[in-house]
């Protein structure tokens, strides 16, 4: 064991420079004006450094092509809604970066938060702005039963599946239960009538219907997992400087490089917007104004109880995982007061293509967003982690210009071309 080793730190401290040099991936120094220390940070942002999304053991169907195909069809099918006019793609529009460009999502009603882009979601341990779901399949189920989104109920969805996708469903998940004797509409989250009808059903029937519903989510998640970001100009530039390919040094303009310097330096953006997806996947209170101060949104704080009690979580009866596979839930942070009014750090990939910004579309432009971080206003609920950042007007403009270099294609695994 290593416990017997002493004084190594003291020795190492004395030799900081030489050790740092020896351990650096860039011992020969930086490129294109970047120091080798900056190169370490820059290198970590490259898309080529993104590890494959982890396997979701709670969804054993996610790798099946037939599940992907079924999930894709469901994703675009408006029959899975109370009014027949809303599909997943209504808000997660492939032509708009799998989001809708609105401040608040709009399905059969108007939601309370901004639609999130689904691309790359399998890299997040918790989904939604507040992380109230712990898998992509469980996330997909939320909007389906939300009265403001798809507005439907699980018995109705099982019927639509049976009527239109029975063969495809059974090829992946096995036989569907009989639904003929069930009421037309019933579900635990519906209106009074639907909830009453759900209560009337016996427990095995409720379980069988809920399993069909869960499987629907698993198919949608299988499709969503195929969506990923392609390389942006930033990636081409960073790959260029890492490989010392001088022909790539002009992929970014001087202004964009200045903005990148702010991003990893005095702007401190990279502290949370880290790694190849430019997100730490965690939740932070950054003092974004409440959309409705009379009814404050407490974000992550309120979501912890929801995800730990969710029947569709990793440890629930519809999960394919063993409890030992559910470490995110086993070790979920509960007591941290910094989670009050904390919201997820979004990926910044393709960010310039999807205004407005923040969890309820509070900021219209990237310039507004940068301005918020410069001013760092106090939070009305909880405490903002931000401290004022002194940026000149020019630096703020450079930073916005840099954010425009993060745009790239969205690709579907298994397809040659992005859309």
């Amino acid at each position, binding site marked *: 064991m290593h416990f017997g080793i002493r004084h190594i730190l003291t020795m190492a401290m004395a030799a900081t420079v030489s*050790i740092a040099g020896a351990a650096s991936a860039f011992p020969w120094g930086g490129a294109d004006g970047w120091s080798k220390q900056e190169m370490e940070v820059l290198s970590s942002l490259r898309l080529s450094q993104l590890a494959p999304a982890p396997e979701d053991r709670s969804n054993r169907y996610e790798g099946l092509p037939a599940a992907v195909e079924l999930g894709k069809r469901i994703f675009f099918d408006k029959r899975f809604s109370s009014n027949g006019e809303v599909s997943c793609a209504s808000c997660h529009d492939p032509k708009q970066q799998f989001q809708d460009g609105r401040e608040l999502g709009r399905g059969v009603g108007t939601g309370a938060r901004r639609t999130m882009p689904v691309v790359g979601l399998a890299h997040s341990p918790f989904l939604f702005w507040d992380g109230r779901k712990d898998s992509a399949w469980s996330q997909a189920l939320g909007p389906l039963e939300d009265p403001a989104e798809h507005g439907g109920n699980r018995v109705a969805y099982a019927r639509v599946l049976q009527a239109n996708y029975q063969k495809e469903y059974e090829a992946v998940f096995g036989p569907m239960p009989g639904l003929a004797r069930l009421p037309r509409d019933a579900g635990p989250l519906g209106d009074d009538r639907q909830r009453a009808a759900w209560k009337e059903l016996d427990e095995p029937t409720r379980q069988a219907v809920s399993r069909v519903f869960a499987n629907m989510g698993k198919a949608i998640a299988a499709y969503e997992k195929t969506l990923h970001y392609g390389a942006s100009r930033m990636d081409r530039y960073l790959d260029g400087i890492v490989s010392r390919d001088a022909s790539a040094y002009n992929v970014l303009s001087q202004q964009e490089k200045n903005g990148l310097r702010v991003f990893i*330096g005095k702007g401190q953006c990279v502290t*949370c917007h880290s790694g190849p997806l430019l997100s730490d996947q965690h939740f932070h209170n950054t003092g974004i104004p409440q959309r409705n101060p009379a009814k404050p949104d407490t974000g992550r704080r309120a979501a912890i109880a929801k995800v730990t009690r969710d029947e569709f979580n990793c440890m629930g009866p519809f999960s394919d995982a063993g409890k030992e596979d559910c470490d*995110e839930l086993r*070790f979920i942070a509960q007591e941290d007061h910094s989670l009050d009014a904390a919201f997820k750090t979004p990926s910044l990939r393709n960010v310039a293509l999807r205004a407005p910004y923040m969890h309820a579309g509070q900021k219209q432009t990237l310039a507004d967003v940068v301005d918020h971080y410069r001013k760092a206003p106090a939070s009305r609920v909880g405490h903002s982690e931000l401290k004022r950042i002194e940026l000149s007007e020019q630096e703020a403009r450079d930073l916005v210009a840099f954010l425009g270099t993060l745009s790239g294609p969205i690709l579907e695994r298994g397809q040659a071309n992005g859309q």
Partner: protein
Amino acid sequence: MIRRQFFTALALLATVFLAACMSPPTGLDLSQKRSTARNLYLVEVQSLADQIAINKMHAWEAKVKLATGEPVRGASITVGGGMPQHGHGYPTQPRVTKELGDGRYLIEGMKFSMSGWWELKLKIDSSAGVDDVTFNTVIAPGP
């Protein structure tokens, strides 16, 4: 030894180049073997991961001895900490899940969500009394 040297070098490296982001205080004591505040215990911690990767959950081990060198068995250990410069805790709630014998305890659920200065705080409660200790770790940027 190599692993520890690597980790130490990584931590120092981080200290150097994080100057570009939010710098940890200079002179931060990164030793992984410390006495508790009231000198009741001598505690040594180490990551059990070959390399600490940002956002990857992993386990640590804490070895607890009395000042006399006798291993402390059957202690109740509370795990806390976070990022003092950001005012938030760990993205997870790490905790001791197993006593490994000889005063060694397994801490599971450790995860660092960002680079920078992190504190790991242990509150140790045994028949010898209650005492606490804080370790500093500096996490380097990475994918």
